[in-house]
């Protein structure tokens, strides 16, 4: 009985940890890259003030285009 409870807890813990890892990786992948005329590039990663403005707009565009 104890063994099965421990196994269930272990599986649940693993799932939570896995979900957290995937979420973290996904969040890390979110970014905005701006390319300028002179060839320079500005990369704004998730969490930066610039990305905080661009990412919601991009999410909105993707959800709208997929909905229709």
């Amino acid at each position, binding site marked *: 009985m104890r063994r099965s409870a421990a196994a269930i807890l272990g599986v649940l813990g693993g799932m939570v940890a896995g979900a957290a890892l995937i979420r973290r990786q*996904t*969040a890390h*992948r*979110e*970014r*905005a*890259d*701006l*390319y*300028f*005329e*002179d060839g*320079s590039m*500005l990369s*704004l990663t998730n969490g930066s003030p*610039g990305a905080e*403005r*661009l*990412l919601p*707009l*991009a*999410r*909105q*565009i*993707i*959800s*709208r*285009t*997929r909905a*229709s």
Partner: protein
Amino acid sequence: MNAQQALADLTEISSQIQSAVVFDDKGKVAGSTGGNGDVLARAASELLATAEELKTGDQRLTQLEVATGEGSVFVVREGKTCIAATTGADPTVGLVFYDLKSALRSVEKAPPKRRPATPRKTAAAAKPAARKKPAPRKKKPDAS
């Protein structure tokens, strides 16, 4: 090639692109892959304007990619014409930019509007209607 044809070719070539729209700097849609071209063009214009506010130097923003967990949004600008596209997650960024630029360059520029024809002045019309003949020369009185 018109914008609609260019977008049809683009979606045929690139399987990564889910939707795309060609529009000008005033938001006028020249062509789109779906019925939501206006929505995508407006949102992409807003995205460009926001990105313009974030830049630090004087250089003009020519292209951008915003990657989210659900997919990416690409915008490429050449002159007054822009192309925006959405893809799935983790696209091949360089390839998508290349395809978008190719599509944008293939979009034929609209021919300049012709002015309404105005009647030209012909050589005959330009001449005064009644031209007086020069007065006949008077003969000099003979010295003899």
